[in-house]
């Protein structure tokens, strides 16, 4: 029988990563100067588990840019003015694992799944080949609001294994069959005895997260405010439309498709794009349904808290707080949602105060 829980002592962690690296293309959070980023693992990697990475590891499964297919234009023998087109698509992805991403990032994948799994072969093949070994969050960071979206610092959704750091080591819980395979390793001890300690840690972290709005997944968005131009104009006056929020987000999935060509061959590329940019929706005719930043920001918030829920029955936000933490003008999406919610500002303020005290 496969193990459900495992334990790795502190000094066994590096060996665990090294053994994973033998089986997987391994991505780990690395310190790059002052920034934490997910990078391919190597023996000298400066791994940093102290705080969430600056950007979500979304790119491992949904790369920032990827080749959809390549094409070659071949002159026809009978008429050199004419060309035949030959299309080629890339090979299958390799076994990959992401280690020590936070539960909000793992949940990001579970938010992308219903969008992409059944229609997008690129996402699907990478997702199926990727094992997600998540590290439970020991405490909240500035801007974090995962509990407001009914997630938590120990949320298991999207993960295959959930790791909780304890005083003497790491407690590993298998979440999926893939996860059980990870635990099926002689170097990992049985962890059943550490379950209680881990749960204690998880609960303590949960209680420290600031509650930004109430209602969770059922947060009631006021149609009146959602449709009010004035509301959005006022809310977004300070927004720089800089787009950083969308690129760091674990759940933003808008993309662009562009062709690149040299002399007679080229590629069709998919790359991340941002709904915060005016040209995102600019039509060739010059018509643009979202010229104003108010309209674009409404799209971003609306997508995560209204449109996505209508399509998939869940919120399109995992509460990671990056868009708040890294926003150059402190736009606080959780506060915008609180203001949008039918309970209005007053009650959510109370909730926030209550959570802090």
């Amino acid at each position: 029988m496969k193990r459900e829980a495992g334990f790795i002592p502190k000094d066994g962690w590096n060996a665990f990563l090294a053994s994973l690296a033998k089986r997987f293309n391994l991505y780990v959070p690395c310190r790059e100067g002052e920034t934490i980023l997910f990078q391919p693992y190597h023996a000298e990697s400066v791994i940093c588990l102290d705080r969430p990475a600056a950007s979500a590891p979304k790119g491992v499964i949904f790369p920032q840019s990827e080749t959809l297919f390549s094409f070659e234009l071949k002159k026809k023998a009978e008429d050199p003015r004419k060309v035949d087109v030959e299309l080629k698509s890339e090979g299958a992805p390799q076994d990959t694992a992401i280690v020590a991403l936070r539960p909000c990032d793992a949940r990001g994948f579970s938010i992308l799944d219903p969008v992409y799994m059944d229609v997008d072969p690129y996402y699907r093949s990478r997702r199926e080949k990727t094992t997600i070994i998540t590290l439970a969050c020991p405490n909240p960071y500035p801007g974090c609001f995962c509990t407001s979206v009914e997630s938590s610092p120990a949320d298991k959704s999207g993960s295959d294994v959930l790791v909780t750091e304890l005083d003497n080591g790491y407690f590993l819980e298998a979440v999926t069959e893939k996860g059980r395979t990870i635990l099926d390793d002689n170097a990992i001890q049985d962890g059943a005895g550490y379950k209680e300690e881990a749960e204690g840690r998880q609960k303590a972290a949960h209680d420290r997260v600031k509650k930004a709005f109430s209602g969770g997944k059922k947060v009631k968005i006021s149609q009146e405010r959602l449709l009010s131009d004035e509301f959005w104009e006022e809310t977004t006056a300070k927004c720089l439309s800089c787009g950083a929020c969308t690129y760091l987000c674990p759940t933003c999935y808008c993309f662009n498709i562009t062709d690149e060509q040299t002399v007679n061959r080229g590629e069709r590329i998919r790359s991340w794009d941002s709904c915060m940019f005016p040209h995102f929706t600019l039509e060739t005719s010059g018509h643009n349904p979202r010229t104003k930043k108010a309209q674009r920001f409404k799209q971003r918030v609306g997508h995560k808290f209204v449109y996505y829920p209508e399509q998939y029955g869940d919120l399109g936000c995992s509460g990671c707080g990056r868009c708040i933490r890294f926003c150059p003008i402190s736009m606080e999406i959780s506060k915008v949602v609180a203001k949008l919610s039918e309970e209005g500002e007053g009650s959510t303020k109370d909730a926030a105060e209550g959570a802090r005290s």
Partner: protein
Amino acid sequence: MIENPYIPDLATINEIIVETPTIKTFRVTLNDPSRMEAFRFEPGQVGQLSVFGVGEATFVINSPPTRRDFLQFSVMKAGEVTTAIHELAVGDQLGVRAPLGNYFPYESMKGKKIVFIGGGIGLAPLRTLILFMLDNRADYGPITIIYGARTHNDYCYKEELKEWGERKDVELILTVDAGSPGAPIREGFVPTVLNEVAPKPEETIAITCGPPIMIKFVLQNLVKLGFGEKEIITTLEARMKCGIGLCGRCNIGSHFICKDGPVFSLAQLNSWNYEI
């Protein structure tokens, strides 16, 4: 394995018809005969045409599903991709991703009177349905077509317009924004001409497509003429990349023009608070 929705079928241009100084119609067939044979679509569905190295753009398949020798697309030269398509010649290769999106609810239109209101290249999606209805003429009541263009030179499908004009079972009303003196065609913007023609709303479906500003006023005028919002159908356009409801550009709330549209009733648009 799921099918890869991003990889186009290769297709060859068999015929190019110059419609106006800026619009050309392309008749294409898929290179793989079995794919062409198996290709099925409904009137109003769209396709993405690729010029490799340049990119993709969305166009309605404006030949009707009842005529399947080729797929027809009309392309107005405007941006990078359309300019590249215009530079293609007969025998050149294109990529085609089709059919995409929904289609005109022609079943529910059976037995009804039909009013088409089109402007410029906006006649393309209507043409599909018009030809489909003419091919199934007995299923539908009287057909009225109001079609406007900027000038006489800007009419698409001139041959067909002539044919429709001669048919007894079709009423064709042509208008130009700025007419030349003495021409046997009305002068005036389409929404205004619609008011002058004033079709009766009873047992009638109105279907419109054209530039956004025209659609906006046509919808308003149809409501004023007494058409119910479920009986007013339009087909929309937006900047699109993926064509399958993922890339995030063409949404109206949780609905995507590329996937859930492009055909919507005014009732739907109103319920989503969409303003053109």
